[in-house]
């Protein structure tokens, strides 16, 4: 990754305009042709410096719901319960974290009403209480990593 790549990664995190030729302005700023910019972008994706390039969709605005949930899982049943939780297709992410609440997962459903049913099923299957922590206010989603 050279200094132009670094500037490109920084620019591309800001967002592109919705217009017929959205790369033109960034390419001109960086002193690149659009083709050069696109081949650098392709390489950054191939090298997994970027995980994705495109529209960032907001599940809630599409009518869906995301909720963060936490559980206090006994150590001796941890992997079994992780398997039970992960088996739900609505569970999108699941992380082990260092805390009394040691399992943290995100439930994604196409409709908000479906989340409660999934939580009840997880409680029944695991015997653990699920602490549902839906967001009440969003301050920012995204990250600008200076490269």
């Amino acid at each position: 990754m050279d200094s132009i790549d670094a500037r490109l990664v920084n620019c591309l995190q800001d967002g592109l305009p919705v217009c017929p030729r959205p790369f033109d302005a960034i390419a001109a700023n960086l002193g690149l042709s659009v083709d050069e910019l696109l081949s650098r972008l392709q390489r950054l994706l191939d090298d997994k410096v970027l995980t994705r390039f495109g529209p960032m969709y907001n599940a809630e605005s599409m009518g869906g719901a995301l909720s963060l949930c936490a559980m206090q899982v006994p150590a001796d049943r941890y992997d079994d319960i992780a398997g039970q939780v992960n088996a739900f297709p609505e569970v999108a992410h699941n992380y082990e974290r260092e805390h009394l609440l040691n399992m943290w997962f995100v439930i994604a459903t196409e409709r908000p009403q479906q989340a409660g049913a999934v939580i009840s099923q997880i409680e029944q299957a695991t015997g653990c209480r699920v602490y549902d922590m839906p967001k009440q206010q969003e301050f920012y989603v995204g990250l600008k990593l200076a490269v």
Partner: protein
Amino acid sequence: MTAYPQAMNKVQQDGQLLDATDRQIIVATQAGLPLVAEPFAALARQLGLETDEVLQRVADMQACGIIRRIAAVPNHYALGYIANGMSVWNVSDEHITELGGLIGGLDYVSHCYQRPRYLPLWPYNLFAMVHGRSRDDVMARVGAISALLGEHCRGHEVLYSKRILKKTGLRIKG
């Protein structure tokens, strides 16, 4: 600025957030936008639509928040940001909107939310994911947040992830 006017009315009038064509566009771009000079024209050809219609629909979806922005998602590990901690803060409710905006605006914070407390087990109502190049780096930034919150914060913790148990993207059906 976009040349395509906002059209939130469309969403409000028919009460339907997404029609079949919007969903086609979403499904076609979930993995990413075509990497060509005119990506919306390429998308239009792929879907059998006019370029102007695709541009208009994408602009509308961005105007009403369905699309946050059209941007690159960095792999923070590849960029050297190998440490991240979920910082959680017990902040006074009357100041949380102002303080959340302040913390969410920091460039090393992603995913900043107000969430419910569960007393006495869980007193924290403000969540901020903090990214850094090392745990020391994360802790220094957590210290900076602590200083910003000052007297409005009654306590905090940082939860590091030990293991990813599952990670799949959100998928919408076509």
